[in-house]
């Protein structure tokens, strides 16, 4: 991977308003050359709007988009050095596969024999050398996917945009295509900008992920950053699974807080951002796998939070198996991941267990509207 000085894509103060609605609100980011950048967010967060502005199908209300350091605002979509893999792929059903892949080359006025060679190379590269004369609807979902990417890649774009292209595939194929997309990106050594609402797609493939909500970027960072050090309550809740409590702050001590939920649980966690005053509301997020499980309190070592309860459900899911524990005092439900060691493999409904975790593992945020 080569990282040269000018980023492939830079968006500066990008804003798009539809009437009174700010679909994209003052978003700025840069994507270094050769990297895989994802925009992750729930539907309606504005990620598709950003992508369509980059492709040229929407005009920004204000702000700038530049590719390889040059603004493309006044460049029509058919002249921009970006190509797009559409959500439903938009392969041309009236053409065969080779004609689909050669379409952009024909637009550039390339000679017939050269197009044939290039299309052949591209088909080779996506591992489907013999499908050139087939029709679009004769291909499987995964094959179509690869053809859609090849159709863009023969044009050697500076940036490839991908608009939730895996959404239509079934689960098994989606898992497979995640790995394959990442491999294709490495093979073509091109900058990918990928939008999705599926966090696992973003986490697995991306070098950088922007989490988007209501028109703004909540956080930009690596998968690890987002997962372990979320900047905002929205990120903590959206990326990965978490137990979530809201309560009033009762004590603040060098980044750690203690809070009390309305049901009467007292919990300790680490504050992100400036802590509000005592008595104000805070949200606490705790990953199910961050909780230690023990048959008696001794097994929890010196955990800062210790609770006990009864197992109410066993959610078996292989390595990601969980239990739901009803806390003894308040009756609150807590999700806990079963340890991989198999130590609790014989746990059954109704068993009493003890839970414990360190304050550093629970992320707290001042309660906002998120």
């Amino acid at each position, binding site marked *: 991977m080569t990282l040269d000085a000018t980023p492939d894509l830079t968006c500066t103060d990008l804003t798009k308003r539809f009437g009174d609605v700010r679909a994209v609100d003052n978003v700025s980011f840069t994507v270094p050359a050769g990297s895989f950048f994802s925009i992750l967010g729930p539907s309606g967060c504005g990620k598709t709007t950003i992508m369509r502005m980059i492709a040229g199908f929407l005009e920004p209300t204000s702000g700038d988009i530049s590719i390889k350091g040059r603004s493309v605002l006044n460049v029509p979509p*058919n002249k921009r050095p*970006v190509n797009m893999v*559409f*959500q439903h792929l*938009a392969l*041309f*059903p009236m053409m065969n596969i080779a004609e689909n892949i050669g379409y952009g080359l024909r*637009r550039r006025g390339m000679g017939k024999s050269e197009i044939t060679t290039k299309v052949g190379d591209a088909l080779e590269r996506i591992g489907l050398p013999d499908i050139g004369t087939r029709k679009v609807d004769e291909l499987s979902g995964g094959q179509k996917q690869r053809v859609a990417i090849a159709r863009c890649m023969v044009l050697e774009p500076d940036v490839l945009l991908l608009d939730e292209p895996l959404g239509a595939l079934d689960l098994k194929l989606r898992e497979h295509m995640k790995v394959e997309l990442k491999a294709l990106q490495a093979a073509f050594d091109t900058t990918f900008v990928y939008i999705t609402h599926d966090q696992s797609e973003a986490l697995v493939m991306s070098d950088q992920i922007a989490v988007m909500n209501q028109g703004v970027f909540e956080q930009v960072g690596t998968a690890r950053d987002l997962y372990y050090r979320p900047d905002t309550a929205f990120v903590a809740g959206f990326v990965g699974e978490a137990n979530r409590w809201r309560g009033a702050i009762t004590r603040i001590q060098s980044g750690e807080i203690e809070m009390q939920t309305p049901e009467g649980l007292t919990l300790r966690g680490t504050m992100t951002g400036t802590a509000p005053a005592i008595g104000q509301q805070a949200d606490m997020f705790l990953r199910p796998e961050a909780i230690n499980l023990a048959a008696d309190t001794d097994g929890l070592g010196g955990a800062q939070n210790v609770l006990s309860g009864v197992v109410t459900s066993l959610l078996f899911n292989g390595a990601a198996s969980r239990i739901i524990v009803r806390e003894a005092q308040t009756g609150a439900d807590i999700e806990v991941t079963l340890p991989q060691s198999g130590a609790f493999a014989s746990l059954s409904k109704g068993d009493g267990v003890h839970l414990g975790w360190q304050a550093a593992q629970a992320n707290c945020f001042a309660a906002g509207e998120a």
Partner: protein
Amino acid sequence: MRDGTRLGFILLLTPLVLWLTLLIFIPHVDMFLVSLRERVGVGQYDTSLANYHTFLTEPLYLWTFLRTAVMSVVATVITLLIAFPVSYYIAKIAKGRLQSTLFLMCLIPFYVSELVRTFGWMILLRETGIVSNLLQWAGLADQPVEMLYNDAAIMIGLVYTSMLFMVVPLVTTLESLDDAVIEAGYDLGGNAWSVTREIVIPHAAPGIVSGSIVVFMLSLGNYLTPTMLGGKDSLWFTELIYSQFIVRFNWELGAAFGFMLLFLSSIIVWGMLKLTGQTLEKTMG
């Protein structure tokens, strides 16, 4: 098949078969047989090709036949050229209320009798008509202008009368073209011309074919428009059929004409389907 479904099958099949045999198949065979008759005396007939011979050797008949065919093709092409941008606008550019209103505005005129529509053009185009008056008022003409009773008037009437049958299939096929496919065409470097040629038109092909077939058929078989807008010398083939049947009472020759018309329309429809690789089921059904 079980007995119950077998009975149902027969009950459903009967009306279809009766309709097609008694009203379509046998009448056409009978018409063909009549066209092969030659009157040799009072109530006496021979089987011969005399009527077809008459058709082929009388220049007026042949000329009218060819003229009708060519004018119908021209009317079809003009209708397609006018309707395509309009249909594209309705299907792909207009959105929501505007879209349904425009579509409805295309439909409504055609629920009105063709006679009324043609009557409208007569009021507009005749010597004392609106257009003539307008031209005089604007100083473009210094005396009444007769715009009826010529081929252009027939063409205007035919195109007008057939418009709906082009617009509806075109709008339907164009609507089914995903916007993303057009965007993909641009994204990969296409421009308005190449996207239209390589993506929009191939996609709309079934609609173009079915619209063209219907418009061609309607023009070829039209009697009202050529008679009223083209006047006495309009030379439309259906007028020959009418006069042989109703005026001259020469059914044998009239049937031969009818058969030639049927033959011509079938050949052109078949050719159009073959040329574009479509089937009747796909374009009409």
